[in-house]
């Protein structure tokens, strides 16, 4: 693992991101429960340490290709909350004018180039962004995020092979939350560790504790340095757990009793908060102020989204091809 020792500013940035992800998810699930909004929603609660650790290691110009549970990546990369919430609500003011929705957030200004609803498809496209950087020498890296289930689809294998032979500046970051939709990891995957699959593509593969943001940060820093240095891709498998099933409304009947409760006991967000206090990185008052600030931003985004207009129906016919009125 790398020698990365994040300074206090970075430690607090990570806390800010984790808090944003936790509070956003909690607010959103409560809204869905209230029936005020309705949409396919894939909660990431429990996985906050991974996007928080990753994002702290990236530079502003770097690219990310994420997936339908990866809304947390968009939030972590700084997609403005108002635009993001309005998009989730299908409003004209949304990041994608209401044409993408929760599974297809795009925000190039934040480096979020693709959010795919197709398992595994973030990886071949991430290669292309990395190829662009390799040809132009712009020094960017691209991260593809995906889940353990995606390591069983062909796109994963084609993408890792190509990234390796071309030495592309790309990082493959797998959040292994132990379930592919309803199927337990070991019942659907022939290897014990996704990271082991890196061997077949002659790239480094590491399995790390995905519930510790500093461990993720260190692994990401090392992989990013390798990619930027022209030494090619890395596969990182970050072990975690999703608290609320595959999709909102899921009854978790396919999970072992107690498994979820045990994971929630080790909730990474309060654990990290406690650590910052214990190490004297911040005071209770400082952390509470960060939480209050994020709460306020979420209130603002929610209100903006609720009050924003729905798209004009004529918008259905724009943005299909170039040259159509935007």
């Amino acid at each position, binding site marked *: 693992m790398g020698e990365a020792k994040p300074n206090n500013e970075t430690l607090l940035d990570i806390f800010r991101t984790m808090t944003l992800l936790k509070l956003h998810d909690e607010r959103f699930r409560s809204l869905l429960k209230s029936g005020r909004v309705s949409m396919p929603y894939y909660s990431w609660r429990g996985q906050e340490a991974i996007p928080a650790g990753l994002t702290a290691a990236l530079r502003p110009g770097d690219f990310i290709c994420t997936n339908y549970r990866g809304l947390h990546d968009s939030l972590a990369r700084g997609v403005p909350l108002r635009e993001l919430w309005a998009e989730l609500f299908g409003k004209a003011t949304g990041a994608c004018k209401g*044409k993408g929705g929760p599974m297809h957030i795009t925000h190039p200004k934040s480096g979020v*180039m693709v959010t*795919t609803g197709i398992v595994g498809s973030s*990886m071949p*496209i991430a290669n292309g962004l990395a190829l*662009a950087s390799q*040809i132009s020498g712009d020094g960017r890296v691209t991260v593809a995020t995906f889940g353990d289930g995606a390591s069983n689809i062909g796109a994963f294998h084609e993408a890792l092979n190509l990234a390796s032979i071309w030495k592309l500046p790309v990082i493959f970051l797998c959040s292994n939350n132990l379930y592919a939709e309803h199927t337990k990891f070991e019942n659907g995957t022939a290897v014990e560790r996704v990271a082991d699959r890196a061997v077949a593509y002659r790239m480094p593969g590491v399995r790390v504790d995905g519930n510790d943001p500093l461990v993720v940060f260190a692994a990401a820093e090392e992989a990013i340095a390798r990619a930027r240095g022209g030494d090619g891709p890395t596969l990182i498998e970050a072990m975690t757990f999703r608290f609320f099933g595959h999709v909102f409304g899921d009854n978790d009947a396919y999970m072992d009793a107690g498994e979820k409760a045990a994971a929630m006991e080790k909730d990474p967000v309060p654990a990290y908060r406690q650590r910052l206090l214990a190490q004297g990185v911040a005071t209770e008052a400082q952390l509470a102020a960060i939480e209050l600030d994020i709460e306020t931003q979420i209130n603002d985004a929610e209100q903006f989204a609720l009050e924003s207009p729905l798209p004009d129906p004529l918008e259905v016919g*724009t943005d299909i091809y170039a040259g159509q009125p935007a």
Partner: protein
Amino acid sequence: MSAELKPVGMIAVLNRALHDAFAADEKVIAFGEDFADREGGGVFGVSKGLSTKFGTSRVRSTPISEQAIIGAAIGASLAGFRPVVEIMLMNFTAVAMDMIVNHAAKLRYMSGGQTHVPITIRTTTGAGFGIGGQHSDMLEAWFAHTAGLKVVVPSNPTDAYGLLTSCIFDDDPCIFIEPLGLMRCQGMLPEPGHRIPLGKAAIVREGADVTVVSYGRQVGECLAAADSLAAEGIRAEVIDLRTVSPLDMQTVLSSVRRTGRVVIVHEAVRNCGVGAEVAARINEALFGKLRAPVQRVCGFDSPVPYSKPLETAFLPNKETIAAAVRAALREIQN
């Protein structure tokens, strides 16, 4: 347009179009299986010389990984490049349909116009060469059925240059189909950078009695049929669609308004083919003005067979086209 006087073959024309696009814009990159010179410059030699001249950073051979090929093209295009990728044979696009249909076609729309995917997917296909059911299909209707894609099929080498150049510099994802049956055709080489607008059909033969609508390799069969029909006093107008999505219905409808009779010809199977769409749009616009039912001459609704007599029976030809034209003319005039 000044043209070289010596006719050149389809492969040389495509090769020249790629070279000219590479010279014109350093954002043009290209890759595919066996694509670079070390691997022979493409299975048909279309990319010969490209990697030697422009380097193996911009011109690459790939593993046999169609999803990875199209995915890499999409990603590079999102970052400002104009990738031209070669999928060796059209049936192999089936392996990469997720990348083409779910991503290339939709990213502009789903991002609300924040990103776009200016890629060109070059591929070749066509029946008649004894290569069986998985190497011969014309699959253009699959792609025409997906909003966000443009689908282009040249009928001759000269058009191929202008259409391919337009695809490469178009800001939307283009499927460019190089008919296998035209690979040995000769044509005139246009001046460098010549473009033919996408979405515009061409009237390749004028006539007052019947409109024959086609594209790709079958345009040649239609012209041959029109020659033999002329000997019978039948004047057939032949329209080459050039682009099957978006369709240039303006050119088709204005011809049908004059002739009142239509025969649509394509090599792809009939069921839900491009001809069905053209026929439906003619009906929508000109119902009551047609003097005969719209006729279709298409590939037989079967997989492409291997054995020569079966493969010949699968394909349209100038005789079956001429027969359809005569049938259209036999209909009682209003």
